[in-house]
């Protein structure tokens, strides 16, 4: 079984984001960048399937500028066999990302595509579902458990109010949720070895995809802040305030 794992370079999850002075975007200058946390979970899941002998090859793919190859090296240090880098600077919309990934799916014919349910920058939660639609594949979103049985993927999903299990014919698209696994750290010898693993360089034009855009960002602003209120001294005072001042309980 061949697994394709798309990954994204994003602002590190521990960095407090700042809006640029002209309110046009979030300021990414001199900010630490990392692999999107949900993508790390996707890489880990693919590596575990290979360790179990279910997967035979894992191919990572990213779309981004030159620096995004760092995240491919990270993925390969964690156990991915080879990578594809689609060179494309700047932010592109989820639909264009899905079209680029579909072009790669057509070339590589993977049995499974595992990717993060969303990236922590755009918070769109769209690419996996869009890719599945474009490839006419079934989708198992927000997965917390993934098993391969009789040529189908059995995906346990986080849903509002509980859990759902679906069975998907392969090839299929699976998007990862937090509980799926706990990603490992790369070991130094593996980081060294990853430097020798191949990265294929492609452009959208090589794949016959024209990047289009139908959304225009008019502004990016900081949300209205919340200021600290008062410290009360007792349960009695708290309940009094909630009843008589805030009037939120009776």
């Amino acid at each position: 079984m061949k697994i394709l794992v798309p990954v994204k370079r994003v602002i590190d999850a521990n960095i407090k984001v700042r809006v640029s002075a002209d309110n046009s975007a979030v300021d990414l200058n001199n900010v630490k960048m990392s692999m999107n946390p949900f993508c790390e979970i996707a890489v880990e899941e693919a590596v575990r399937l290979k360790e179990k002998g279910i997967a035979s090859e894992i191919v990572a793919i990213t779309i981004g500028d030159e620096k995004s190859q760092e995240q491919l090296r990270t993925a390969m240090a964690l156990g991915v066999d080879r990578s594809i880098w689609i060179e494309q600077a700047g932010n592109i919309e989820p639909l264009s990302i899905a079209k680029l990934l579909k072009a790669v799916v057509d070339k590589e014919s993977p049995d499974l595509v595992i990717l993060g349910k969303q990236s922590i920058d755009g918070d769109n939660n769209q690419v996996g579902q869009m890719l599945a639609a474009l490839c006419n594949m079934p989708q198992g979103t927000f997965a917390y458990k993934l098993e391969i049985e009789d040529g189908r993927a059995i995906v346990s999903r986080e849903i509002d109010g509980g859990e759902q299990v679906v069975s998907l014919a392969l090839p299929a698209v699976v998007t990862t949720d937090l509980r799926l696994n706990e990603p490992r750290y790369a070991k130094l010898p593996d980081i060294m070895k990853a430097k020798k693993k191949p990265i294929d360089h492609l452009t959208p034009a090589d794949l016959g995809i024209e990047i289009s855009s139908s959304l225009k960002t008019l502004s990016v602003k900081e949300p209205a802040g919340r200021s600290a209120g008062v410290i009360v001294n007792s349960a009695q005072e708290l309940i009094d305030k909630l009843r008589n001042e805030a009037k939120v309980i009776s």
Partner: protein
Amino acid sequence: MSVLVIAEHNNKKLNALTGNVITAAAKIDADVHILVAGNDCSAVAESSAEYDGVSKVLLADKPSHEHHLPESLGPLVIELATNYTAILLAASTTGKNLAPRVAALLDVAQISDIVAVEAADTFVRPVYAGNALATVQSNDSIKIITVRTSAFDETASGNTKAPIEYVDFALEQDSSRFVSENLAVSERPELAAASIVISGGRGLGSAENFQILEKLADKLGAAIGASRAAVDAGYVGNDLQVGQTGKIVAPDLYIAVGISGAIQHLAGMKDSKVIVAINSDADAPIFQVADYGLVADLFQVLPEIDALLS
């Protein structure tokens, strides 16, 4: 032209979140239709028809729609889409699962998780876990939108009755099969829709201690929530998690008990109208967003509060 809202339901009962989506839809266009897709779900269509401002309900009642699988519902929505300028869904796990599939098949963008409608083509949505708000304009002829329901009020209902029209469309598919579902059963209001939420964090120390919160929740008519730390520690199920990666809530009153207030958690509750924090650590970041803070041992004050509410 009209706008279409895809109703959220369990085939028996309409989910009230649909009413919040209708409010957002009506800001785009006054002529709102609702699609109820499911199996044996005519009761849901009946209640959908009662929302103010809804002019038509489309009922797609087929066994293949029972579990709302996007592989089955996607083609149905595409079939109807050309009649509309916008299609809106709740940014719930069901809506998030379906909307991008529809958008991709229509070759249009999706606008996720909107919190405001500025104009029929311009929307505000949080990015970077709510640390920034982006205003985006779409030039697509059909806009596919998911709505953060906590940012919109529920539309009133019961004054009118819209006609119900049947949609005879079903696509049999076997690529995706429903296997099972396990839903938490609770007498309490649903977390995303409750007007009072009381959440516990690692400070509670054990699953048993969550029962103290449950007693209080029952007195207040509140839903129970939890921080990621409490979920990770196994005190409660993942479905109760409030935060960036869990539920996003904005109740009238949010009570955080034994929660330190990691950014992750704040992203899920900071739009609540009134926030109360109870924590023994006076330096906990939760106090920076709380309207009322009580620095105290929760095991001492929760019984006091319980007594005061009796």
